[in-house]
C-alpha cells in the first residue's frame, strides 16, 4: 500500500501537478513542534551580564573597536567586520565593557574563543537609530551597512549576508528563495517569526530582491506550518512586488538550502559550487527580518528568536539578546540547566560544552532533554548492507560504502565516493537498523582528509622552497665562478646570460606558485555543517597566508638578485 502511495506521489510530482520537484530520500521524524508553538514569542529583557564572542559568523574574526572600561550604548558597534567575509558585533544593551578575554562558546569543540563581556547598566539606552533610505543610496553602500550591522544567515550557517546579496554580472540571480521550511524537529523559531512578523519579513525580502534584482521570489514553507504559510501569503499579497509562497512537502532535510532549491526550482546546485552559479540565492526568513530591522529601523543584529523546548516549564520562543547566558535562558523558561543541553535540533544539533555559554547568532534552539527523550542507542551491530541509509540519503550517496571506507581509513576511496557531498543531516543514522553512528564516521573521515590535505600542502611548499634554495645556491656558485673568470679575463660585459637564467628561474617559480593556486579545488563549503565550514575557512586563510609567504619569498629573491646585479 505504501509503495502504491509513494508511486502515485512520484507520478504526480513528475507530471508537475504541484509544480514542485523532489530529492532522494529524506525521513519523517516526529515533529515535536507543538510544544513550543502554543504561546507567542516572549521578549527577554537584557540580563545583567552578556558575553559576545567576536566570531559569531563564518569568516574572519571581527576587529575590536572598544576597550575594557568603555561605556557603550545599545546597538553600538563593538567589533568591526574584518574584510569582506566577516560581520560586525554590537552591544545588545547599554553598559560597560567588563572584560575582553577568552570565554567558552557554544561550539562542539568546547574550546574558548575571544569574547567581549558587557555589564549592563540597566538603562537599555539606544544609540541614535537612523533608518536607511535604501533606494537613495548606492547598492554598495547598502551592502556595507549590512556588513557593519552584523547581518548573517540566521538559519544556522551564519554566513555574512552582504556577500550573497552582491550582484554578480556573471551569475545574475533569477530566483530568490526565502527559506521558511524549518525541517528539523522541535525547532519553531522561524515558524513563530513568520506567524507574528510576516509583514516585516516581507519588507526585508523586498530589500533583498532589490539588491539582487531577482526576477522571481519564492518563500518555501513546509506544509506542516499552515498558519505561517497563511500569514506569509497575506503579507506577500500586500507587497508591491510579486512574492510567491510555496508550501513544500514536510520531509527532513527539506529545509537544507540545496534541497529546498531543488524542490522549488528543480535545479541542483552543482557539487562544490554556490547556488548563485545556477541563478539562485537562498536566505532564511529571520535573515530577511534582520535586513528589515536594519533598513527600516536602523537596528543592527543584537537579538534573535530562540526556541527553548523539551523538559521545561514554559516551552516556547524567546526573543533573546545575543550574549545572554544559556543557563539564564533555560531557567527563565522554567527548566534546569543540566549538562546535557542540546543546541539545534535532534538531527543536527550538538551537546553544549556547558550551560554557561552565550546565545549567539547561530543559536536557533535549545533543547532540555529528559532521560527518556534521547536514549543512548543500543550497541552497534555490523552493517548488513540493507541500504536503508542509501534510500534515505538526500545527497544520493551510498552511506554503507562511505562507512566501510571511513572505518578502514581508506580515505582516497571515501573521497572518490564523494564524502564531501555529505551534508551530515543524520538521515542515514536515523534509519540504520544496526545502530551504527554513521555521521560520526563521516565527520571523522572528513577531518582526516582535510588534515591530510593540509599536511600534503605544507610538504609541497617545503619541498618547493628547498628546491628553490638549492637552485639559488647553485646559481650563486656559478655566478661567483663567473665573476672570478671575468676578473681573470679582465672582461666585465658578460653578465647578461647569467642574468637571463636567473630571471627565468624566478619566472618559473612564480608560475609554479600560480599553478598551485589554480589547482586548488574549491571545497564544498555550502553543504558542510557550520563547524566544518568554519574549519575550512580557517584552513583557507592559512593557505592564503602560506601562498602569500611563498610569493613574497620569490619576490625577495628577485629583489636580491636585482640588487646583486647592480
Amino acid at each position, binding site marked *: 500500500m*505504501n*509503495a502504491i502511495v509513494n508511486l502515485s506521489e512520484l507520478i504526480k510530482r513528475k507530471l508537475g501537478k504541484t509544480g514542485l520537484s523532489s*530529492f*532522494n530520500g529524506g*525521513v519523517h*521524524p516526529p515533529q515535536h513542534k507543538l510544544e513550543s508553538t502554543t504561546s507567542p514569542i516572549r521578549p527577554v529583557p537584557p540580563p545583567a551580564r552578556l558575553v559576545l564572542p567576536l566570531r559569531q559568523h563564518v569568516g574572519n574574526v571581527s576587529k575590536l573597536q572598544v576597550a575594557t572600561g568603555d561605556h557603550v550604548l545599545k546597538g553600538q558597534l563593538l567589533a568591526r567586520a574584518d574584510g569582506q567575509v566577516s560581520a560586525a558585533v554590537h552591544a545588545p544593551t547599554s553598559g560597560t565593557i567588563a572584560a575582553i578575554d577568552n570565554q567558552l562558546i557554544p561550539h*562542539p*569543540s*568546547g574550546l574558548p574563543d575571544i569574547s567581549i563581556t558587557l555589564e549592563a547598566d540597566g538603562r537599555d539606552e539606544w544609540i541614535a537609530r537612523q533608518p536607511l533610505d535604501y533606494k537613495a543610496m548606492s547598492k554598495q553602500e547598502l551592502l556595507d551597512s549590512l556588513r557593519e550591522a552584523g547581518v548573517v544567515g540566521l538559519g544556522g550557517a551564519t554566513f555574512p549576508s552582504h556577500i550573497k546579496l552582491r550582484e554578480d554580472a556573471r551569475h545574475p540571480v533569477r530566483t530568490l528563495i526565502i527559506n521558511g521550511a524549518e525541517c528539523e*524537529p522541535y525547532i519553531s523559531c522561524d515558524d513563530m517569526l513568520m506567524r507574528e512578523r510576516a509583514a516585516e519579513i516581507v519588507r526585508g525580502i523586498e530589500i533583498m530582491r532589490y539588491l539582487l534584482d531577482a526576477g522571481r521570489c519564492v518563500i518555501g514553507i513546509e506544509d506542516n506550518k499552515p498558519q505561517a504559510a497563511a500569514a506569509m501569503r497575506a503579507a506577500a499579497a500586500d507587497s508591491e512586488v510579486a512574492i510567491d509562497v510555496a508550501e513544500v512537502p514536510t520531509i527532513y532535510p527539506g529545509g537544507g538550502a*540545496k534541497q529546498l532549491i531543488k524542490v522549488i526550482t528543480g535545479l*541542483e*546546485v*552543482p*557539487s*562544490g*559550487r554556490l547556488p548563485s552559479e545556477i541563478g539562485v540565492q537562498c536566505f532564511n526568513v529571520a535573515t530577511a527580518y534582520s535586513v528589515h530591522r536594519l533598513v527600516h529601523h536602523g537596528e543592527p543584529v543584537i537579538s534573535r528568536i530562540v526556541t527553548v523546548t523539551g523538559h521545561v516549564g514554559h516551552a516556547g520562543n524567546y526573543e533573546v539578546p545575543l550574549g545572554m547566558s544559556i543557563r539564564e535562558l533555560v531557567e527563565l523558561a522554567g527548566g534546569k540547566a543540566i549538562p546535557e543541553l542540546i543546541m539545534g535540533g*535532534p*538531527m*543536527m*544539533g*550538538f*551537546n553544549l*560544552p556547558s550551560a554557561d555559554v552565550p546565545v549567539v547568532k547561530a543559536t536557533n534552539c535549545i533543547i532540555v532533554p529528559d532521560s527518556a*527523550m*534521547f536514549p543512548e*542507542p*543500543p*550497541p552497534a*551491530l*555490523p552493517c*548488513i*548492507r*540493507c*541500504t*536503508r541509509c*542509501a*534510500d534515505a540519503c538526500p*545527497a*544520493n*550517496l*551510498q552511506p*554503507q*560504502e562511505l562507512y566501510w571506507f571511513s572505518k578502514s581509513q581508506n580515505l582516497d576511496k571515501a573521497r572518490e*565516493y*564523494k564524502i564531501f*557531498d555529505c551534508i551530515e543531516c*543524520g538521515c542515514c*543514522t*536515523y*534509519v*540504520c*537498523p*544496526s*545502530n551504527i*553512528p554513521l*555521521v*560520526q564516521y563521516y*565527520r571523522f573521515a572528513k577531518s582526516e582528509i582535510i588534515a591530510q590535505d593540509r599536511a600534503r600542502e605544507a610538504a609541497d611548499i617545503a619541498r618547493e622552497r628547498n628546491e628553490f634554495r638549492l637552485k639559488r645556491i647553485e646559481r650563486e656558485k656559478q655566478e661567483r665562478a663567473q665573476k672570478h673568470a671575468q676578473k681573470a679575463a679582465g672582461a666585465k660585459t658578460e653578465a647578461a646570460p647569467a642574468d637571463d637564467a636567473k630571471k627565468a628561474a624566478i619566472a618559473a617559480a612564480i608560475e609554479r606558485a600560480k599553478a598551485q593556486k589554480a589547482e586548488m579545488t574549491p571545497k564544498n563549503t555550502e553543504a558542510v555543517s557550520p*563547524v566544518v565550514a568554519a574549519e575550512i575557512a580557517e584552513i583557507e586563510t592559512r593557505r592564503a597566508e602560506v601562498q602569500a609567504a611563498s610569493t613574497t619569498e620569490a619576490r625577495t629573491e628577485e629583489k636580491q638578485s636585482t640588487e646583486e646585479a647592480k
Partner: protein
Amino acid sequence: MNRSPYISEAPSVTSIMLKVMLALVPAIAAYVWVYGGGILVTLALASLTAIVTEALMLKLRDRPVRLFITDGSALVTAWLLALALPPLAPWWLIVLGTAIAIVVAKQIYGGLGNNPFNPAMVGYAALLISFPALMTTWPAPLALAEFELGFVDQMLFIFSGNLPAGVALDAVTSATPLDYLKTQLTLNHSLQEITQSPIFGTLGATGGELVAAAYLLGGLYLIQQRIITWHLPVAFLAAIAIMAGLFYLADAGRFADPALHLFGGATMLCAFFIITDPVSGPTTPRGKLIFAAGIGIMTYVIRVYGGYPDGVAFAVIFFNICVPLIDAYTQPRVFGHDK
C-alpha cells in the same frame, strides 16, 4: 560532543529477521499440507544446529554471544536451507549443511555482515556436490504418493532412514518436474508427452506450485514492510520468464513454458528470500537489477543445459562473487554531480 542525530526510528536487525521468518510461515504451512509434517522436524533440526554452531563460533572468535545470537540471522539461514533441502533428507545431512552454512560460509568470514556468499546457498551447494543422490530424492506430494507417510513415520525416516515395514522407497518418492523433464527429454520424449505425468500441476509441480505461491505471498509482505525492494524479485522473475519465453517460442516441443520455470523448482524461494540477502548482494538499485537478472539467466541455463535439475544455488554463488564489481560500476549519480 557531537553525537547527533539523537533520535532514530530504525527497526532492529532482530525485527527485520523476525519479519523474514514470519514471511516464510505461509510457505511452511503449504509445505506441511503438501508433503506432511516432516518439514517441521527439518526446520527444528536446522535451527538447533545453527544456534549451537553460531554460539560456538562466536565463543571461539571471542565475540559477544548473546548480542549476535539474538540478531536472528542464524535462524533465517537455517530456515532457508531447511526449505531448500528435500523434505525427508536424513538428519545428518541437515546438520552438516547447516553447520557448513554457519561455520564456513558465515562465521569464518567474520560473522554477520561479512559473508561474501549466501550462507544457505553455500551449505546447499556443498551438499549437492557431495551427496547428489540424496539431494535429488524428493518425496512425492502426499496426494500422489502410493503410500502416505504420517508425521511419526516421516520423523522416523529422517532419523533412522527406515520406512514402515513393507513400504518401498519408490512408494514415497517421486521425481521433481524439473528433474523428470531433464531425464525424459534425454530419452527423446516430447514435452507434450512428458507433461502428461501427474507430477505436473497447473503452473508448476503438483503441490509445489502451492508452496511457490506461498513464497510469493510472503515476498509481497516483505516488500510491503520495506524489508526488501522490488528490484531483485522483479528482475529475477522477469529474466527467467523472458529466457523461458524465448526458448519456448523457439521450440515448444523441447522447452517447458515460462509458468513451469516460474512456479517450479526453487524460483519463488530464490526470488524473494535467497537473492534478497542484503549482505551478499549488491547495494545500488541498478546493481540489484543486474545481479538478479544475471542469476535468473544463469539459473535457466543450468536448468536446461547444466548437469543439475535446478541451478539456483550455483547461480547465486557465482553472482555473489561479482557483487563488488557490480557495485563499483553501478554507483548512482550523487546530488549535484553530472554522472
